[in-house]
């Protein structure tokens, strides 16, 4: 074997573009399998549309259409009534990874990094070779731009296939994207259907029109005309900054001095605090930021830590609101009891955040299963990686037995209950780019637990009340069971007639009820419940169309069983034995039960 020289080896090493990287590692963005890919694509498109509408203060109306092109190919069309995008921006926004408006600012938008939508384009391009079609209109007097786009994976630059001005009469402004991609459409948990439903629940101001590949249209109308409070952008808080980011900021800042840099680039840093930071970092306030070396930056980083800086402002984030969250839950779940809470703002790593929890108990929910957990971050449903999420671990580490649910040590509690947890923050710490689970920060876990406990306390008082009423109900039925016996005994002893006996029963009822007071009733009182909505996503995850086959298969099985039994009877008849009759009798019984089974399977 000939040894290769360093020069030879060096020839092979070359720059990897970010697009190339994700081409090979598409699971990092959530495109692991066809089913999930379809969901992620819809999610990224809807997130973008919602962010755009809200930023422009337009009440969002988004339509999503999925068309099945063949067994594995789907076309996704997402159209919004947002502000539209100017022609020159379209290629970069959709076809350049890590290009976006949201990465360098801190605000509680859904999108963060500028990866999602272009990654979706990339995925479509990789699986179909076809370009994406973007249609956007910014003004009712202008024509729309229709641009066909691809991504050059080598350079991570947009590749414009075609660009033209077109008439788009039905919209004054808005954007429509059309991407073909490989996918699989299944109903049930973690489906596009469920994702969109949950999105509608936590975005009550959104109207969503969804047409699934079976050409079934579902409309989620908005329930409030009120937009969420305008998202305020804040500068980073010094405590939340990492060294690398700090160095970058020092490089690009327009500030002339360190004093200026600290007061203009950060929140909560006034002249006094800036001086103190410089002192703690052994830097002169007049030093030019461009002259700061890596070592000096490290000193600054340590200096910030040593300085006492007040927490960031929290008015930059707006929660959904406990009431709205509970309303959404009422649509989804028909329960006996609801409660919700919004925690006051808190801070992790310099990022303000708010935790909200809502809870639905009893009613039509199954009592012997683990509770259902619904996770949201900045109004986006989180459907995957429940086990890795800080929300899940917070739920597991809460002592639910104190709050009326069953729980074996630090596991998901069991009971007829749904728990909704929502985190709003200017920067949601996801465990990965596919944004599926929250990272375990102590401050976040603590806040989630406090919110859960707050709801838990309300829950346990309801559970106790319910138990009391149930016991009372049992006692009542016990009384009612034995009243006739007391009356009957008296009738027998005194030779009374039936009318007198009835009178005694009535009197006894009155006497005993009187001493027990009014019986409170727990009923499901939920006019908001929407059974159609609740059904979405709760179907079994079966490929559409296969359901019928399965049913007929089952009835075939029953027929098979019957055949076997007929054979059995033949054998018995051949064996002329005394107990033939018995056997046949037994077989008949079996036959009846089989028929019974058949009926239930067919139902």
């Amino acid at each position, binding site marked *: 074997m000939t040894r290769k020289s360093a020069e030879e080896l060096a020839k092979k090493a070359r720059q990897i573009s970010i697009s190339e990287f994700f081409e090979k590692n598409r699971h990092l963005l959530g495109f692991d399998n066809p089913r999930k890919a379809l969901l992620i694509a819809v999610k990224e498109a809807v997130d973008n549309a919602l962010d755009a509408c809200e930023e422009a203060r337009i009440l969002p109306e988004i339509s999503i259409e999925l068309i099945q092109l063949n067994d594995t190919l789907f076309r996704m069309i997402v159209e919004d009534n947002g502000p539209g995008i100017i022609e020159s921006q379209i290629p970069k926004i959709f076809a350049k990874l890590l290009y976006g408006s949201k990465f360098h600012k801190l605000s509680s938008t859904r999108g963060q990094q500028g990866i999602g939508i272009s990654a979706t384009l990339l995925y479509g391009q990789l699986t179909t070779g076809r370009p994406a079609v973007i249609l956007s209109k910014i003004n009712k007097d202008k024509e729309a731009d229709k641009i066909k786009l691809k991504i050059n994976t080598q350079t991570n630059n947009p590749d414009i296939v075609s660009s033209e001005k077109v008439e788009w009469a039905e919209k004054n402004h808005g954007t429509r994207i059309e991407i073909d991609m490989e996918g699989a459409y299944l109903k049930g948990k973690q489906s596009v259907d469920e994702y969109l439903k949950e999105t509608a629940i936590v975005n009550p101001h959104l109207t969503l029109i969804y047409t699934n590949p079976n050409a079934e249209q579902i409309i989620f109308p908005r329930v409030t005309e009120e937009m969420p409070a305008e998202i305020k952008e804040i500068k980073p808080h010094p405590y939340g900054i990492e060294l690398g980011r700090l160095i970058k900021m020092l490089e690009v800042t327009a500030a002339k001095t360190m004093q200026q840099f600290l007061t203009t680039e950060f929140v909560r840093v006034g002249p006094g605090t800036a001086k103190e930071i410089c002192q703690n970092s052994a830097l002169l306030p007049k030093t030019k930021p461009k002259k700061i070396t890596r070592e000096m930056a490290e000193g600054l980083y340590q200096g910030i830590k040593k300085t006492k800086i007040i927490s960031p402002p929290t008015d930059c984030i707006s929660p959904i609101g406990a009431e709205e969250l509970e309303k959404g839950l009422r649509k989804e779940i028909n329960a006996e009891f609801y409660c919700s809470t919004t925690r006051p703002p808190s801070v992790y790593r310099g990022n303000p955040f708010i935790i909200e929890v809502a809870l639905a108990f009893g009613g039509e929910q199954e009592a012997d299963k683990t509770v259902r957990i619904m996770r949201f971050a900045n109004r986006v449903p989180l459907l995957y990686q429940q086990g890795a999420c800080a929300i899940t671990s917070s739920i597991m580490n809460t002592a639910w037995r104190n709050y009326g649910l069953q729980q074996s040590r630090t596991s998901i509690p069991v009971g007829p209950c749904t728990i909704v947890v929502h985190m709003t923050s200017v920067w949601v710490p996801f465990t990965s780019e596919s944004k599926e689970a929250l990272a375990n920060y102590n401050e976040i876990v603590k806040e989630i637990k406090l919110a859960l406990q707050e709801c838990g306390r309300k829950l346990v008082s309801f559970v106790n009340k319910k138990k009391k009423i149930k016991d009372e109900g049992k*006692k*009542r039925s*016990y*009384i009612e*069971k*034995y*009243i006739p*016996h*007391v009356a*009957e*005994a*008296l009738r*027998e*002893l*005194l030779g*009374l007639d039936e009318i007198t006996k009835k*009178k*005694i029963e009535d*009197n*006894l009822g*009155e*006497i*005993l009820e*009187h*001493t*027990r007071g009014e019986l409170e009733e727990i009923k499901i009182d939920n006019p908001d419940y929407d059974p159609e909505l609740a059904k979405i996503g709760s179907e079994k995850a079966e490929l559409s169309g296969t359901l019928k086959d399965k049913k007929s298969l089952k009835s075939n099985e029953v027929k098979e069983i019957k055949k076997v039994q007929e054979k059995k009877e033949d054998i018995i008849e051949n064996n002329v034995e005394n107990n033939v009759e018995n056997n046949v009798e037994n077989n008949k019984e079996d036959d009846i039960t089989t028929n019974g089974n058949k009926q239930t399977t067919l139902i």
Partner: protein
Amino acid sequence: MATKTGKQNIVIKKIEELAKDVWNTISRLKQPELEMPIRALSNVKYDEKEGYFKIQDRVKLRTLTASTIKTFAQSLRMMGLSKSLIEAEDIATKREAYYVSKNWGDARFKEQPESDTVMDDIEAMMRVNREQIGFIPEEKGGDVAGKLIVIDKDQDTGKEIKIDCTKFGSGAYSVPSSVEELRFETNAKFILAIETAGMFQRLVKHNYWKKSDCILISMGGVPTRACRRFIRKLADDKKLPVYVFTDGDPYGFGSIYRTLKVGSGNAAHINKFFCVPQAQFIGITPQDIVDYKLPTHPLKDVDIKKIKDLIKNDPFIIHHKPWQKALKQMATMKVRAEQQALAKHGLNFVISDYLPKKLKDQKTWLP
């Protein structure tokens, strides 16, 4: 028969009165109550003059509430059963009554002890004997051998028949569950009531009754009501002394002898008829264990507990100093001895030495 019917009419009247009371109370929309005496040692007093545990006037009220409605219904239905039994001049065993309740739907008894308790409550409510409300126990009354002729009736013809208790050979006459109608003929000098069937067998086998002119009765543990009533009736009618011969242990003293002599807490309401105040205890005493050097068994924890309980709570023991002394003596000795332990000195030692000596020396008895 006239008295019997009269008595039964009284019971029916009482039952009807109670039922009417309940009905009236319900009509007034008030919670009805059933009142019954408390049947426990805590509600009896030892009456020395009368010689038995007299019931006191503490009562328990069974008020009709959500939690008592089942027993309330059962009590009323049991009263109904009792009434129909008396009217039909029929009787039912406790077990039969339990089975009758199976017709009562949800008000039926799950286990016989439940129906027994309700029955005892009604009996106490009426302040009469079980037999008078139409129920009889299943338990055997006890075995009798010796110089006694029991006058009973032929169950078919009603004709008088005389049963000679000397003519049972190595067997014995069995005390029936109802003894009220029996009459007696005897020239015996005393009655000897014996705890165990084993000792009874030995005395019968060697015709002890012949040697000492007596009537032997085996109680087989705590004497049943029928057995107590039989001994009482016989002793009263024929003015015979009654001697009781039990094991030398707290159970023999406190349960068997005491119940025979003065009655029990549970049957507090009827002790008057079911006691034998003339009974005397002739062994085995703790002193006998010492005097006869009898083989012993160590006392168990339950025995020691029973001794303490007797000294502290039993009105009969509290009344009799000699009994307290004896029990304390046993507690310090920490041993007990059975009747058959006398066999240590020879199988017939009990006949040849122990009983004759005992019966002669009143100082060795206990009250």
